[in-house]
C-alpha cells in the first residue's frame, strides 16, 4: 500500500469515527445536537480553521485553506476521534457559558484577525460558493464572537450587507465590502490612530473608550421623514432606518432604530421640529440621534414645496458624491438621494435626466415591489417632480432604489 492510499484509508476511518461521534452527540446531548464544529489547528507552524459539519448524514470537512483532506483536516479528525475515547470515560462537565464581551474587553487584534480570516475564507472558496461554505459561516461567527456585545450597528450592518451580496452573487460589491473590512482591520492594528482611522473605528464599532466622538449638534431644524426600511444585520430585519431631510440645508440623515429599542416616534412621512440632535461623522447618510423634537403626523404642503426646492438637480454631482462616499466607507456607505428630474423618459425604461443631460435610472434588484408600483404610477401618467431613494450601482451605473415620489397633484407617495 503506497503512502497516498494509506493516508486515504486513515482519513476514511477517521471520518467514520467522527460521524459516529457527532451522531452520538446529537442523540444524547440534552442541550441540543451538534451540527457543526470549528477548530483552529496548527500544523507545521501554520494555523488553519477546520470546520466539520454533518449535513444529511454526511460529514463535510474543510479547512480555511480550502482543502478537504489536508493535514489540518486530518489533525482535526484525529482530535475528534481521540476526544471520543477521552469522553467515554469522563463524566459530562457543565456547559461553557458564552458571556457577551464589553467593548473594553475586546482585544482589537482579535477582531482584526477575525476580519482577515473572513476575507481569506471568502476569497479561498470564491464568491460563487461562499453562500454555503462552512468555513465562511464559521468565519462570520467568529467575527461576531470576538466583537463587542451587543454587536455594534456598523459591524452588524457589514455582516448583513456581505451576506446579501454573497447571496445575490454581486462580485464587485462583495470585493468592495471586504475591502472595507480589510481597512478596518488595518485601523484596528495601527499603532497610532489618525483622524481617518478613528472615524472608521467609530463608524464600525461606535465611540471608542477614551476618544471624543466627532459629533455635530443641530438646533431648531425642521426635518421631514421621506422614507424608511428594515435592514438586515447579524439577523434579518434588525435595524429600522429612517431617512430624514433637513428642509433648510437639504442634508439627508439616517436615524437607525434597532429592534425593540426606541427612537423618535411617528409615522412615515412626518414632520419633525428638532430642538436638539446629534449628528455623527461617518458614512453617508450621516447618522442622527434626535434628542428633543416635536412631531406632526401630517406634513404641510409648504414643507413639501421646500423638499422639492432642496432636491438635487445635477446628477453629475449626485454620482460624484456617491463615488466619494463609497470610496471613504466601502462597507458601510449607503447614500440616499433626493432628486428633482428636469425631464423623464418612461417608455419601458425609466430614465431621469437633469438639465445637462446626465441620467439616473431605477435599480431593479432591490425593493422589487416598490419599483413595480413606481412603474404602475408612471403608466397612470404620473410625472414626478421629485424622487427619493437609496443610491446604488449596477454595472458601474449609478441607480436609485425608489422610496418616495412627489408630484404636482400629490405631494408625497410612499413606495
Amino acid at each position, binding site marked *: 500500500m503506497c503512502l497516498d492510499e494509506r493516508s486515504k484509508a486513515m482519513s476514511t476511518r477517521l471520518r467514520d469515527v467522527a460521524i459516529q461521534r457527532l451522531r452520538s452527540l446529537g442523540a444524547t446531548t440534552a442541550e441540543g445536537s451538534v451540527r457543526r464544529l470549528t477548530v483552529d489547528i496548527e500544523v507545521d507552524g501554520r494555523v488553519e480553521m477546520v470546520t466539520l459539519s454533518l449535513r444529511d448524514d454526511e460529514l463535510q470537512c474543510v479547512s480555511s485553506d480550502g482543502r478537504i483532506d489536508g493535514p489540518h483536516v486530518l489533525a482535526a479528525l484525529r482530535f475528534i476521534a481521540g476526544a471520543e475515547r477521552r469522553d467515554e470515560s469522563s463524566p459530562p462537565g457543565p456547559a461553557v457559558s458564552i458571556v457577551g464581551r464589553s467593548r473594553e474587553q475586546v482585544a482589537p487584534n482579535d477582531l482584526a484577525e477575525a476580519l482577515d480570516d473572513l476575507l481569506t475564507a471568502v476569497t*479561498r472558496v470564491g464568491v*460563487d460558493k461562499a453562500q454555503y461554505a462552512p468555513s465562511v459561516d464559521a468565519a462570520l461567527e467568529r467575527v461576531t464572537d470576538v466583537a463587542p456585545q451587543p454587536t455594534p450597528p456598523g459591524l452588524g450592518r457589514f455582516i448583513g450587507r456581505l451576506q446579501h451580496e454573497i447571496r445575490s452573487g454581486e462580485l464587485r*460589491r462583495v*470585493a*468592495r465590502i471586504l*475591502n472595507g473590512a*480589510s481597512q478596518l482591520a488595518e485601523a484596528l492594528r495601527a499603532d497610532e490612530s489618525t483622524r481617518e482611522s478613528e472615524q472608521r473605528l467609530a463608524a464600525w464599532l461606535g465611540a471608542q473608550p477614551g476618544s471624543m466622538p466627532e459629533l455635530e449638534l443641530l438646533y431648531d431644524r425642521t426635518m421631514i421623514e421621506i422614507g424608511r426600511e428594515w435592514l438586515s444585520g447579524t439577523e434579518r430585519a434588525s435595524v429600522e432606518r429612517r431617512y430624514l431631510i433637513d428642509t433648510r440645508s437639504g442634508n439627508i440623515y439616517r436615524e437607525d432604530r434597532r429592534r425593540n429599542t426606541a427612537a423618535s*416616534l411617528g409615522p412615515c412621512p412626518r414632520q419633525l421640529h428638532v430642538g436638539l440632535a446629534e449628528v455623527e461623522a461617518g458614512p453617508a447618510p450621516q447618522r442622527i440621534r434626535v434628542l428633543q423634537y416635536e412631531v406632526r403626523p401630517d406634513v404641510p404642503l409648504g414643507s413639501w414645496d421646500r423638499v422639492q426646492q432642496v432636491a438635487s438637480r445635477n446628477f453629475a454631482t449626485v454620482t460624484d458624491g456617491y463615488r466619494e462616499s463609497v470610496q471613504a466607507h466601502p462597507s458601510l456607505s449607503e447614500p440616499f438621494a433626493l432628486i428633482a428630474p428636469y425631464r423623464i423618459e418612461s417608455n419601458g425604461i425609466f430614465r431621469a435626466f437633469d438639465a445637462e443631460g446626465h441620467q439616473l435610472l431605477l435599480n431593479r434588484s432591490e425593493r422589487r415591489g416598490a419599483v413595480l408600483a413606481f412603474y404602475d404610477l408612471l403608466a397612470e401618467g404620473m410625472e414626478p417632480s421629485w424622487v427619493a431613494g437609496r443610491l446604488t450601482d449596477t454595472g*458601474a*451605473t449609478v441607480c436609485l432604489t425608489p422610496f418616495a415620489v412627489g408630484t404636482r397633484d400629490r405631494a408625497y407617495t410612499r413606495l
Partner: protein
Amino acid sequence: MAHNPEADLDTLELCLRQGIAGNDYADPREELGCRADADDREVARALVRLVAASDLEQIGTQSINSEAARHPSVRPPTAVAADPSFLGRLSTSGAEGLSVERIDDLPTILAVLRAGSRRQRRAALERLRERLRDRRLLHTDAVRKAIQTITELRDVELGHELAQARAELPGTQGRQARHEHEHWKRLAQRTEGAIRAFWDGQSNAEPIQGLPGDQRALLLMRASELPDVVVHHISAIIEGNDGWVPLESRIGLISSLRYATDRRLVPALISVVEAERGELVARAARVLGSIDDARVHPALAERFERSFVNEERIALASALGMRGDCRGLTEVRSSLEEDQPQLLLMALEAMENLGSSENTGLVAKFLDHAEVAIATQAVRTAARIGDGRVLDELTAKHNATSVPALRAAIEDALSSIAARMELRGEEAATIDWSEVGNKPVSRKGARDSLPSIVFGWRDYFLGRVWLLLGRVNWANARFESAAGRRSDWAVPLIGIGMAFARREQYALALPAFRRAIELDRTRIERNPILVRAMAKSFLHRAEQVEREGRDDVARGLVGEVLTLDLRRAPGTVRFELKRKHDVLRREEQGDVHSAA
C-alpha cells in the same frame, strides 16, 4: 504590499468568483504580482483591494444598459393552473379579454356579485354602479332587480363598496346610506381632531384604541376616504412607532383593517410582514391580500418562502391565493388533512382563496364539525369553491341543524353555488326553498284569552308611554306585566331590551333579549333594527367584561350571539363580533405569538 497594478481585471474577478484555492485557470499570485510563497491572507487582501479599486474607478462611467433597466414586468408564475372556466379567467380590470369591466349583461354582473372571488365581487359592484348611473335604464326590470340586490346584499367583505353604491340609489335606501355616510364623516372628523391632540401631546389616550369595536370597524371600513393624517397615524400604530399602543391592540387594529383596501396602508403593512413574526405577520398578510397594489405580491411571496411558522404560512398562502398565486395550496391541504385544531379555521379560510372542486370533499368533512365557527366557515368555503356536488349535503345539513347562524350561512352558500354553476355554464341548480327555507316553529300551547290579550296590549302601551316620559323602571314594570299576561309573547321583552340598549345598559338588556329570542327568535333576526340593537348589546357587554379581565365570559357572549342569524345586522357589527370571537378563541388556545 506588492501587487501588480496592471493585473488583468477579468482574471482577478475569475479568481474571486471561483476562489484562490485550487483555481485551475489562473494563478492569483502571479497575476497580482505576489511572491509564490505569499500566504492566502496577503493574496486575498491584494485581490479585493484591486477589484474594489477598479470597481470604484468605473462608477458612473459606463452607459446605461437599457435591457437591465427595463420594466420588471415579469411576475412570479402561479404554482398550479388557474381555473379555466369563465369565472376562473374573469379578470377584475382591463379592456381586453374576459374582464368584469366589459360585462354589460346585468344578470351576469349580479351572478358574479354573488359567486365571484372578493376582488371579482368588488369589481362587479363597481360595474353595477356604473350601469346604474345611466338614468335611462332606471325603470327597466333588470335595473330594479339590481337595485334590490344591492339593497339586500349583506356581504361584510364589500362593506365600503356597498355603502358607496347604496348612497347613489334613489329613495329611502339612498337617503339612509347618505345619512350613515354623514355619521361616518363626523366620526372621522372627531377622530382626526383627537389624533392631532395625541401627537401634540395634549392627550395621552390613543383615539382609535379608545373607540368601541363597532365604531372602530365603521371608521376603518372606509379607510380609503380617511384624511392623510388619520392614515399616517394608523400606519404608525401598525409599525409600532406610536410609542403607546400595546402589542395586543396593535394586532387588534391590524385585524380591524381586514377589508380595508387603501393603498396608503401598504408600506406599513409590508414593513410588518418583512420585519415581524407570528400573529402580526398573519394579520398583516390578510389585509394585504385584498389590496390591489403592485408592492403586495413580491412582499408576500418573499415572506412565504422564508417563513417557517405554520400560522404565518397559512395566512400568507391565503393572501397569495387572493392574488392567484397558489403556491401554498399543498400546505393548506395538509393542515386540513392533519386536522390541526389551532390552524383549522385559518386553513378553511385560506381554502376560500385557494380551493378548487378537487378540495370539495376535504372541506365537506368539516360541515359536521362540533364547533359552530368551524362548521360555518366550512360552509362559506364550500360556497366559494362552488362545486354542485355539495348541494345535497348542504341541504341535509340545513334541515338537520338547529343553529340559526349555520342555517343562514347555508342559505347564502346555496345561492352562491347556484350562481357559480350558472356562470360556469353547468346545469343550473334548482333549489327547493320550501325544503331549505327557515321554517317557523309551530307554536304549541293554549291560545291566550281575549282579556289577557287586551290587558297585555294595555300594559305594553303604558310601558311605551313611561319610556317616552323617561321613567325606565316604571316602563319595564309595565312591560314585564304585559309579558306575564300572555304566553309566548316576545314584544314586551323586546321593548325592555331596546329600552336598556338605548341607554347603553347592556347587562340589563341581555336577559330581556335572551328571553325574547327564546320565545320568538325569527322576529328579532328578521328585523334589522332589533337585530342591530341585540347584536350591539352582546358586543358591547362582551367588551365591558373583557375590560374587567373576564375573557371567558366575553368569549361566551360573543359565541352565543354568533350562533344567531345576524345577516340583517350592520356589517360593521358582524365584522367586529367575528373579529372579537377570533381573538378570544386564539387567546383561549394560547396561540397569541409574541411579535418581539
